[in-house]
């Protein structure tokens, strides 16, 4: 799966779970998620679990903060780093 597919997979999950009815065009790679309130801490935990299951990686508690989960591009970068590690 290339990085564009990764981003789209994450985007589809966020739209389905946390933004039902929202157009995918409005959820861009750099749309703030945590800092804008789209994702609260429990929603982030749900997203972390999805990312782990979908991409076969493990995210530690200290990695689930704003630095890695505020934007789809950050999430994709974390997945790439984890898969490449």
């Amino acid at each position: 799966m290339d990085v564009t597919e990764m981003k789209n997979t994450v985007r589809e999950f966020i739209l389905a779970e946390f933004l039902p009815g929202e157009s995918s065009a409005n959820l861009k790679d750099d749309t703030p998620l945590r800092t804008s309130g789209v994702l609260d801490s429990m929603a982030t935990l749900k997203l972390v679990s999805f990312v782990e299951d979908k991409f076969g990686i493990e995210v530690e508690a200290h990695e689930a903060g704003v630095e890695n989960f505020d934007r789809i591009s950050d999430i994709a970068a974390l997945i790439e780093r984890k898969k490449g590690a």
Partner: protein
Amino acid sequence: MSTEREELIRAALEFGRRAFPEDRPTGEAEGEFNRAGWKQLAEFGLFGMPVPASHGGLGLGLGDVIAVMETLGYAIADQGLLFSANAHLWTNVIPVLIYGTAEQKQEYLPRMASGEWIGANAGSEPDAGSDIFAMRTRAVKTATSYVLNGTKTFCTNAQVADVFVAYATLDPALGPMGITSFVVPRSTPGVTVGKHIDKMGLRTSPMGEVIFEDCEIPLANRLGREGRGAQVFECAMEWERGCILANCLGVMRRQLEKAIAHCQTRKQFGKSIGKFQSVANRIVDMKLRLETCRPLVRRIGELKDSGKAADLEAAMAKLYVSECYVKSSLDLIQLFGGYGYTTEQGVERDLRDAVGSTLYSGTSEIQRNIIAKCLGL
């Protein structure tokens, strides 16, 4: 409905009526746990119903368990006992079944499924109720163990529990990602059951504080991954919200039948009171509530049995059924008039039991929050 489920319902009805005859006192006034009743439920197989046969259970689907619970709620007056059974099933059996390691399942599930061990949830704290993840109970990891310190409250079954599924934070700064869950046998040094909490209803279901003081738990007793206790908790709550009111459907059915029988036989002004439109309308509302509540709860069984999430549906069922349960309990008292207000008829007990349903497993306000969030609000 399948023939097997119909047979199960018949068996549950026969069992409930035989084992819990209506005239048998259940220690409600004294707030006594019905241990003999617990053993009877265990012998009937209730606690093993959602557990696979490989772990000592019957391996039934959730739809079947919900049908049994509804029937037991109809047949048994002691809703406190069924409340304790619900707490044991959804906050102990299910988390261990879903998140337990092979060793944990082997160690705990057979005893939980047989009813030999009673489980209690140690989650809520004095300052962490609806805001559960603000919990202060700390877990400190050592080379071989976790050491728990903190006080839990509103723990159903606390006084009679043999095991606790407990939650503590490794680091409050991590929020929900700091929470970790543990299986803690009551015999663990450092576990104390604190004061009994007296309640207006569900009085036969014990409730109390659980205190962890330098309570050292082997690493092997961590339930689920480190920092994923919030996920375990949310999972348990989803099951509990969706299923804990199944027996209340049975109560609502019993209330409806009682209301109809009473209003057909009680005469005032020369005719049965059911002939007065304002009286009949209450019974119509009770019937409507029962029939609109039932599909919401049964839907949880369908979703879970097909491996789907039921966050939204469980919150809707919890909110709607609990509020209907309170309204129908109030209606029944009104239909019985002054007699309904006395303790002789037993209908006031239903109301006292019902009020708690809008509070436990998340208040009605919290259920609305969950539903709104699921709608993208």
